[in-house]
């Protein structure tokens, strides 16, 4: 019952606040939307330049699906106070992932992420680990590959988002509307390579999507 109210609230929050904000204030152009997952389970892997990234990716889903989308967020940034933790978990559906590995959490670090995929829900991960600047693609951390290793049947969808670094870059609060471009790559599955190689492979796909975008801009 409590869960139902929470889900309804999240749907309404997206339908009446986040989606109008994303689609009217800013606007989103999607390339290859047919590659985008409509239903879980799936892992979406994307570059990260702004907080807006998460909201754009979530807005691409139908409203019915909204409660079942979970962006993985840094434990030390989004969950460091009780209030923040409550708001981000309940309103957006974020799940915490620790950016630091130590003896205490090494076994349980992906527990929440795994639970999401067990429930056939969708996980959004920004494997750069933090927001970048100037659209430079950082090295991908291997966390998502380790999750994928456990779920070889879950599709991984690489995505490149252009625009949020102009809309709301790191370190500013003045947000300026632009239309964002989302490039969706083809889904792939975990193969038998190591987590490190797989992370590099996915990064390469996202990098190619970025280059395709750059080629277009320079025309």
């Amino acid at each position, binding site marked *: 019952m409590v869960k139902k109210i929470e889900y309804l609230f999240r749907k309404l929050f997206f339908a009446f606040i986040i989606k109008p904000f994303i689609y*009217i204030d*800013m*606007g*989103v*152009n*999607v390339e290859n939307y047919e590659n985008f997952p409509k239903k879980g389970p799936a892992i979406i892997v994307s570059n990260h330049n702004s907080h807006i990234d998460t909201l754009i990716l979530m807005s691409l889903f139908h409203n019915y699906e909204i409660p079942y989308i979970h962006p993985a967020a840094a434990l030390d940034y989004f969950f460091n106070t009780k209030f923040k933790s409550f708001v981000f978990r309940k309103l957006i559906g974020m799940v915490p992932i620790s950016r630091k590995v130590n003896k205490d959490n090494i076994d349980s670090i992906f527990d929440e992420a795994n639970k999401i995929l067990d429930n056939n829900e969708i996980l959004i991960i920004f494997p750069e680990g933090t927001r970048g600047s*100037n659209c430079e693609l950082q090295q991908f951390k291997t966390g998502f590959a380790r999750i994928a290793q456990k779920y070889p049947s879950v599709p991984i969808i690489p995505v490149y988002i252009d*625009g949020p*670094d*102009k809309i709301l*870059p790191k370190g500013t609060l*003045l947000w*300026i*509307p*632009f*239309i964002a471009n989302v490039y969706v790559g083809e889904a792939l599955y975990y193969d038998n390579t190591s987590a490190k190689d797989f992370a590099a492979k996915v990064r390469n796909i996202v990098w190619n999507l970025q280059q395709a975008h750059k080629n*277009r*801009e*320079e*025309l």
Partner: protein
Amino acid sequence: MELHNIAPNTLIALIIFYIFLILMSIAGFILRKAGKNVDNFITRMNSFWIIALLFTCAFAFSRKIALLFIMLLCYLALKEFFSIIPIRKSLRDVVFWAYIAIPVQFYFIYTNWIVMFYLFVPLYMFLLIPVAMVKKGETQGFIKSCAVIHWGLMSAVYSLGYVALFYSIPASINPKGGILGLIFYILILTISNDFSQFFFGKTMGRHKIVPTISPNKTWEGFLGGIFGTTIISIIMGYFLTPMSIYQSAFAGAVLAVAGFLGDVTMSGVKRDLGIKDTSQLIPGHGGILDRFDSLIFTAPLFFHYIAYVFDINILR
């Protein structure tokens, strides 16, 4: 909420327009039933329905709502423009000031301070954008960035803003259709010009008119567009505006040329940037700038024409 006094002629024209839309949609469904591939046409028609209903709702109630609606339109158009040009991240602040110009301009329109509307974007924003650039302290691409941002403001905010400026014309000059009659006339004429150019170009287009910019445009389409638009202008001008038959015919021909020029200008911009559509906002049509490119040229022209012929004071 106070309803406008919609003149009977304008109301009848609106009803005829909707009957036409219904017939087009029915034709689309019949063609689909007959097994023809008209999905693109139906997508376009559905989008067109939404545009038509939005415009009707926006203009039917009050001047305030209409101005807000046109303001939103200008905002979407300007945002589209800033999103298609390769603008650097460091110019965010300059872009911010460009956005601020929209509410300021509509304040001038709302308070009927028309001279200030004439001057604000062409002159004061022209001066302010370099100031914002100087404040940024960047010299790389200085003049280019100023020019591009001002170009966007002029086309997306200033020219489209003329649609709202029709409300500043006293309704007494147009007893037949009222202010809404004039706005309806220019909107329908611009759309039907696009359509008749497309129609004549598709059916008998042979000779390319601007092959480097828009290879699909032909002389036949251009001249056919002028012909079709002039006829529609004479009919609509008679019922909706105070123009005589000759004045309507002249307005129709001039607006047809202007609409064509607006169309190819935006094509030139898009070709320069290597894109097909300015955004994906309107399914089947592209973006605001794709759909309203002709209006950027026709709205100011028709406003000045009406003002020159019937109410010269507004220009003084």
